[in-house]
């Protein structure tokens, strides 16, 4: 479903963020994207969500070359992709409900239908009791889960997450990953970028590893916990 074909991305000044990266993510597949910071994880996600365009190569979703998508159509592509951000990017002066409802409002939902979907999404991440709260009053893990609810509320077929467990303790991280697993089990393709290698190794999913813009590993990660 998602395919990278010899994709390179270099920024002005000559910095090469991605170097001839190729991989395929099948429909309903879940995979991790790992690597040190600066290895190109964020750039790769930006290419999928059309925040950046590749310098060379093609990014395809369902055999549609994303370079053919012109600017006015970008919003419609993004509606098919749920994106979860490391720093949540919630609207702090709006309630949890408003935040989660935003993608639905944009798509023209209203009334009972919208309320039902928002409640369903918040229920999946276990935050149904916080509907009327402002994001400031929530903990970091809860804010992250609001972000996830917002990403999945319009049931996108592809879910991208950039360091979703970046600032969370291991237990909370595991909870978040369980949420992703649950979505994956109902057929959503999930790509999670993270540098939490321990967590990745325990989860036993396909892992794509980037190093200085190159794809150095594609498959199960053989990772040994460092001995103390």
């Amino acid at each position, binding site marked *: 479903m998602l395919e990278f074909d010899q994709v390179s991305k270099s920024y002005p000044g000559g910095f090469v963020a991605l170097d001839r990266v190729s991989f395929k993510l099948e429909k309903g597949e879940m995979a991790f994207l790992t690597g040190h910071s600066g290895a190109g994880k964020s750039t790769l996600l930006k290419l999928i969500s059309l925040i950046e365009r590749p310098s060379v190569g093609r990014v395809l*979703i369902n055999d549609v070359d994303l370079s053919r998508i012109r600017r006015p159509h970008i919003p419609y592509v*993004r509606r098919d992709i749920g*994106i979860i951000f490391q720093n949540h990017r919630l609207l702090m002066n709006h309630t949890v409900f408003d935040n989660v409802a935003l993608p639905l409002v944009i*798509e023209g939902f209203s009334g009972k239908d919208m309320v039902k979907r928002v409640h369903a999404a918040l229920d999946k991440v276990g935050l149904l009791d916080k509907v009327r709260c402002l994001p400031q009053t929530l903990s970091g893990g809860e804010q992250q889960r609001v972000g996830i609810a917002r990403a999945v509320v319009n049931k996108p077929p592809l879910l991208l997450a950039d360091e979703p467990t970046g600032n969370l303790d291991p237990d909370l991280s595991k909870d978040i990953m369980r949420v992703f697993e649950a979505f994956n089990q109902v057929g959503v393709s999930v790509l999670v970028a993270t540098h939490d290698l321990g967590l990745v190794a325990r989860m036993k999913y396909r892992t794509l590893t980037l190093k200085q813009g190159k794809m150095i590993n594609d498959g199960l990660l053989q990772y040994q916990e460092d001995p103390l």
Partner: protein
Amino acid sequence: MSILFSGRASSGASAHKISLGRRFVMFWVNHVRQALFSLGELWRTPSASILTIGVLGVSLTLPATLHLLVKNVQQVSDSFTQAAEISLFIKDGTDDRQINSLLKILQADNDIARVTHISKQQALAEFADVSGFGAALTYLTDNPLPDVLLVLPKNTSAGSARQLLDRLSKERIVEFGKLDIDWLTRLDAIVSLLRQAVLVIAILLLGAVLLIIGNTIRLSIMNKKDEIEVMKLVGATDAFIQRPFLYSGVWFGVFGGLLAFLIVEAMLWWLQGAIGSVTSLYDSEFRLMAFSVTEFFSLMLLAVLLGLTGSYLSVRRHISAIEPTGP
């Protein structure tokens, strides 16, 4: 509408089975909701909103006042229809029969509203009365004054009055005709100068209003930069993002227009007394004219259009410039 996932069933409200009528109603409900939301936004930032509305109101007041001034001056100048009265001096030695037949012809003329005949004797009596030469005039052996026909044209504008004068001067028994029209043309020129000055000032002020509204909207866009980035990331089109800002512009226009109207009304009320005492000295029936309903709505329409245009110019430039840099 899904570009990438053709089989995606539940993408957007349009895929749901909603009847056309209901969708039409929802369209308007949504717009009203967004308009009210924008009103709420203005309410939440009162100081900035009040300043902008104040500037808009004051800027609209000046052209509106000048317009009223022109309108009232025109009313005054229109009341001087006497000014276009033509005096036809009859040749000496013309007998009454000829004068009467000309009088009849002129009365039947379509271009003429009224003809009055002032005979030699009437003229002399009036002159004796007014000039104060009463006693001296009795020494005159014969009456030196001619018969006069006073002609009031139907169309009192300077040009057509002059045409009529040229035509009537060709009558056989008419010595010459006279039309005291110079000062009327001067007044006309002054009024039209005034009107053009109003136009220029109005255009300048309206330009300023556009810039002010554009800047206010630009600031509120900058304040919401993060919010706009998030909305773009979750798939909002530029049109969706800019709508609340356009509504803010409309509200600025509505309130600014109302403010201008109120200021002008207050000014009229304030001046009414002073103008009354001046006009009573001149024994005139002058009444100060306020806005008509049409003018009120034109003012409001103009204000709203300015608000909308100002915000549109700003929104078009700045919203597309904000691009998300995440995730």
